[in-house]
Each structure stands twice: as structure tokens, then as C-alpha cells.
């Protein structure tokens, strides 16, 4: 039986194995990503702070990309090229939204960090092992950490609203440009495209403001 199975296996074309290997590798990489989502070594609040710092770096990069994109769109005279640029912009905004979505990594870590702070505070209220002043010190520090986490979450909530609006604006404009192109209104399409640059620059400014507004808890 085993021999016959091995024989059948040997008959399967090499290309199949190559494709299967590709699948396994792709699955491995996504499984790795999923694993990276789970903080194992760090506590929720530490992980949240780490992810927040990384998100701020992304904000800085994307703010620059938005500025460059606004400049490119300003100079564009082809509606097709502009559509490509908008599509790319949607990808960038999508990356921001992915991080701050309710089921996104940063958001989940933020709510976990808040839960942990609440649990710690509750536990410390009834803690009897430490001297009163030591206990009060710990309570004070956890309260600060909780307040900082709440502030960061509030900023992220604001960012989420802005990014969602920007994405909606980009897709609506893209659809409108499509409609204009269908009726050969190229000039009007280019006007719509150029009109987008203010919104994109505004997004870049908002990202810069967010960079200074979001404080990393515990930092």
C-alpha cells in the first residue's frame, strides 16, 4: 500500500510540487504574520507602545508620500495616469486604516492595554502585601499609564475618522473621473484631479499633526 502510494507520488508532475511548495511558503509567510500579531513576550501595554511608535514612523513616511503625490497630481495632464496615482493613494490610506481599524493590530492592542490597566488598578486596590505608600505609588503610575493609553486611543479614533473620510473622497473622485472618461470629458476629469491635491495636502498636514499629538504611553 505504502509502496503504491509512493509510486503514485512519484508520478505527480514536478510542476505540481513546485506549486504546492509555493502554497506552503505563502501559507508559512501569512502564518508568520498572524503569529507576529500575537504579543507573546511583552505585556499588552508595552506591545501597544511599541506598535504605536511603529505607526508613527508609518505616519511620517506616508505624510511624505502624500506630499509627493499631491505634487505629481498637480503636474498630471493625463486622466489615466491620475487614476493610477489615486489608486496608489488608496493603498496608502488603506494601510493607515488597517492599523487603526477596530479589528486592526494597533487598536486591539490599545484596548487590551486599557483592559490590563483596569485589571491592575482593581487588583492594587485590594493588594495588602505592600506598604501603603508603595501601593499608592503603583496605583498612581498605573493611573497615568491608563490615562496616556486612553489619550492615544482617542487620537487614533480621530485619525480613523480622517482616514476613512479621505478614502471615501478618493474613491468617489476616482469613480467620478471614470464616469467623465466614459463620456470623453478629459478636460473636466483633469480639473477634478487637480482639485484633489488640496485634500491630499490636507491629509499630509493632518498626519504631521497626529505625529506630535499621539504620545506613546509609558515613554
Amino acid at each position, binding site marked *: 500500500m505504502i509502496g503504491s502510494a509512493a509510486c503514485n507520488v512519484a508520478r505527480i508532475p514536478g510542476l*505540481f510540487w*513546485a*506549486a504546492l511548495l509555493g502554497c506552503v511558503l505563502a501559507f508559512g509567510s501569512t502564518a508568520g504574520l498572524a503569529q507576529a500579531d500575537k504579543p507573546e513576550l511583552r505585556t499588552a501595554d508595552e506591545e501597544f507602545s511599541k506598535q504605536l511608535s511603529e505607526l508613527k514612523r508609518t505616519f511620517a513616511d506616508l505624510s511624505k508620500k502624500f506630499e509627493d503625490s499631491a505634487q505629481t497630481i498637480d503636474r498630471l495632464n493625463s486622466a489615466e495616469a491620475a487614476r493610477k496615482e489615486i489608486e496608489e493613494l488608496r493603498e496608502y490610506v488603506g494601510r493607515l486604516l488597517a492599523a487603526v481599524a477596530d479589528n486592526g493590530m494597533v487598536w486591539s492592542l490599545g484596548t487590551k492595554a486599557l483592559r490590563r490597566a483596569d485589571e491592575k488598578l482593581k487588583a492594587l486596590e485590594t493588594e495588602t502585601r505592600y506598604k501603603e505608600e508603595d501601593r499608592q505609588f503603583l496605583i498612581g503610575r498605573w493611573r497615568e499609564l491608563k490615562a496616556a493609553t486612553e489619550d492615544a486611543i482617542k487620537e487614533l*479614533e480621530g485619525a480613523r475618522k480622517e482616514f476613512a473620510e479621505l478614502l*471615501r473622497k478618493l*474613491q468617489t473622485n476616482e469613480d467620478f473621473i471614470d464616469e467623465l472618461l466614459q463620456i470623453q470629458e478629459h478636460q473636466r476629469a483633469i480639473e477634478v484631479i487637480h482639485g484633489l491635491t488640496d485634500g491630499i495636502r490636507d491629509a499630509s498636514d493632518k498626519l504631521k499633526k497626529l505625529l506630535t499629538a499621539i504620545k506613546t504611553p509609558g515613554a
Partner: protein
Amino acid sequence: MRAPAGIALALALAGCNLDNSVGYIEIKALPSSAALALYLDSVRLDPPRNGNALLRQKVGLSKLQTDGEGGYLALLCTIDVKKNRITSVTVSTASRQPRCQCGRTGGTDAGGNRTCVG
């Protein structure tokens, strides 16, 4: 030999879904204080903060559901999630029966089968 190899390759590639594209769903509860259990493809959602939720979702059709009679889930609407696009849905509980209001609807809706598109 070439044809079976090609078929095998096609089958293997079809078997592994490499498309990890995602889009976004924005759910607004109306009124914002409404306590309504919502499920996206059978996954129960956390109650929206301030009546607003934004979710990352795999590209394709997703079902927005709520608790129905007899422990079953009742379909509110279908949401067509497109790559890097946002689909807005307002869930209104103003009437006795919760309803989906789409930011934009699909052109082929029939009867109660409402599809929101991004």
C-alpha cells in the same frame, strides 16, 4: 506530459488562495446608543464605540447579521467589500425591525436582499 503538468499547476494554484486583498466596512448605528448585536459573517462584533465601527475585511461578499428568532441569525444586508475601498452601512433601529441603509447599493438588489457596495 505538458498538459497534465499544466492542469496540476492550475489545480494547485486554485487550491491556495493567495489573494490577501482587504477593504473596509464602516458601520454606523442609528441611534448611536442602540444596543444591537451585530455579526459579520457569523463573527460577533464588539459594540461600536460612539455608534461607529470601522472594520478591515477580506475582499468579497460579507453578510451583516443580527440575532433572529429561534437562535438563528437574521440577515440585514450583504456587503460587497472591494480592495482598498470603504463601504458604508448605517444600521437603523428606529423601526421595530433593524434595517441596513447602504451608502451605495448594488444595482441588482431583489426584495429583502440588499447589497451595499463601496
